[in-house]
């Protein structure tokens, strides 16, 4: 029972070191070296108003905007306070029905071209800020018509926002939906 003292004191000291000192040091260094990232990679519109984070997706449904992936977050789509996925087996009849409904809406929504999986399948976080280049390309015609821009112009703007593989080989190419939509609003309000 003489080990009770070290048990209590070790827990107390490690709480101070790992639970107090360590996060404080990381926060201090992070705020000093990478303040924008540490605060959530927030982005502002032309007027300087913060309109979101480059890392957190938003739900767009207006034809003039690039649309994100479906989202299964709680409450409403892209709810940052309830991150999470659908957790329905992709082999189940319920899932087949959901995908069938999403696929059925695509032609009416002006989505053309081959169907990229991410256009009809929700992400794990429900907050995925990106779509694949294929999912974006399928929306060019609709956006161009809704904004009165040429298809080439919209395609160019998408190309300008293409994030290639990190360091040339890591991950997948992708397009940030919110960034594209800000650029679209700036080009043709």
């Amino acid at each position: 029972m003489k080990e009770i003292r070290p048990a209590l004191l070790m827990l107390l000291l490690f709480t101070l070191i790992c639970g107090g000192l360590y996060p404080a040091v990381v926060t201090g260094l992070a705020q000093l070296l990478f303040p924008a990232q540490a605060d959530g990679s927030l982005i502002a519109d032309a007027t300087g108003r913060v309109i979101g984070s480059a890392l957190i997706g938003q739900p767009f449904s207006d034809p003039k905007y690039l649309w994100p992936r479906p989202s299964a977050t709680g409450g409403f789509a892209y709810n940052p306070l309830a991150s999470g996925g659908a957790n329905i087996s992709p082999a189940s009849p319920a899932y087949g029905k959901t995908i069938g409904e999403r696929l059925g809406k695509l032609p009416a929504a002006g989505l053309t071209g081959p169907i990229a999986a991410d256009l009809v399948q929700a992400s794990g976080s429900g907050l995925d800020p990106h779509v694949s280049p294929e999912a974006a390309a399928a929306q060019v015609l609709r956006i161009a018509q809704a904004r009165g821009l040429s298809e080439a112009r919209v395609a160019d703007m998408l190309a300008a926002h293409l994030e290639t593989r990190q360091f040339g080989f890591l991950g997948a190419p992708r397009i940030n939906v919110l960034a594209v939509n800000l650029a679209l609003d700036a080009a043709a309000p």
Partner: protein
Amino acid sequence: MDMFAWLQTGLFFTTLLLLVKPLGIYMARVYRGERTLLSPLLAPCENLLYRICGVNPDKEMDWRHYTAAMLLFNLTGMAALFALLNMQHLLPFNPRGLPPFTWQLALNTAVSFVTNTNWQAYSGEAAASYLTQMTGLTVQNFVSAATGLAVIIALIRGFSRRTTALIGNFWVDLSRGVLYILLPLSLAAALLLVSQGVIQNFSPYRTVLLLQPFNIDTPAGQETVAEVTLPMGPVASQEAIKELGTNGGGFFNANSAHPFENPTPFSHLLEILLILVIPAALTHTFGVMVGNTRQGWALFSVMLLLLIFSFGALQWVETDAAPQLSQFGIEGGNMEGKEVRFGQAATSLFEVATSATSCGAVAAMHDSLTPLGGMIPLSLILLGEIVFGGVGSGLYTMLAFAVIAVFVAGLMIGRTPEYLGKKIEVREMWLSIVTILIAGVVVLILSGIAMVTPSATASMANAGAHGLSEVLYAFASMANNNGSAFAGLNADTNFYNLLGALAMLIGRFVPAVAMLAMAGSLAAKKYVPPSLGTLPTDKPPFALWLLLVILIVGALTFFPALALGPIAEHLTVPGGN
């Protein structure tokens, strides 16, 4: 896989391989109390710690004393965390004014983090205050990992020492693990993660106006959503140790799929590396400490083979062999529950790494994997998390398998079973068998009880075979201290909170105590020099034999359950058979 995916995967495994030796040697030096690069800075802190706590670092313990100290420390941690979760509403650093956890959820969560499981029946951003995340959960992420390290180091001492009762001092092993290994690596990793976009602040949650407001239907009628609230918090500091300590408890509900926890492909691969690096390097620490590094490489190669095979299988079934998706005519493999930025290959790598170890962080939702895809992480967990495994716990479970492999081989060829110069006798066999079978027994019994309990089956999000997979995965995850989930299951019920806590306690402490007992019994034995009759355990034939023993034990124990869950589900899919 395309060219980039091959390059990415190849470079990843090369990096892991290159880190095994230096980190393995460093950890051996730390636990032998030798001087290291960080000693000038850390030795004074370490000594101060011992002075305050009244610990004499030169006084070693026998296995009973070591076990008592370990259990007492973990019990204290559990009580403290339970109290913190129950009164977080009264304490500072709670900008959202979050209420306390219910006692059942607090008990489950306290057990979960102390046992290195990090099963989460709560949603981080909606339930845990900053103070809870930092001084409760982050602290246990450190000390539960250091506890696992202490147990494996004591066991290695059992193999390397001769005719002694002493296996080390628990307080010294615990302190060195935190100070010399986990803290410096976490600090560096946390800053790298912030550079990629992982957040680290104490700001209140931030409300932003949406570019395009939208309408939703609520029970009260239509409502316009014009603004959303972005969660904030000290995420990076917790993220680093969450992976490094194979803990896996996410700051947010979506865990490492959340862009604030894992924003880029680089952060993603860094997190996978953090999950694997300590368990992988421990095989070399083991080799160094028993005086024959080839013994460590033999175990490493078995683990690596299983990991690469699992990765290939998961990648294949999720992209090329997803019949239930090809019927819809969509391209790109199964993207449900996955993020665009990581790509399929790196996503598969994360999911096998997290279930091969006892980490349980997820970058994709396992419930949304194809039936055979979901079976792969499930099988890795059921094997007992020996493919690198948890920090410490993976290697000690693997050593239990090695003892059994040596014993069975000895019986078959008529040689005295010896491992690393120690005779394997009845006591060692008992302890090893308990270690490798206890989690399986708990999983099968509790899953069986769940299947006949209406309140337990009501928690399933999917009907039929997939529902069984959800429950089987839940108890496999808890009993093996993994913490990942088929997350459709509603786990915040009395049934799963309380029986789950029991499963986590048994799955963590029965093997840990058994391995400490084996450390004691091995340390007391004489050294038997290798003779012509000794089975060489540092050569490829033994590694292959060990692999077969693992697969046979795993298949015999779990094949029936897997056949009723994921395999049955796969066979009923159109085009699945």
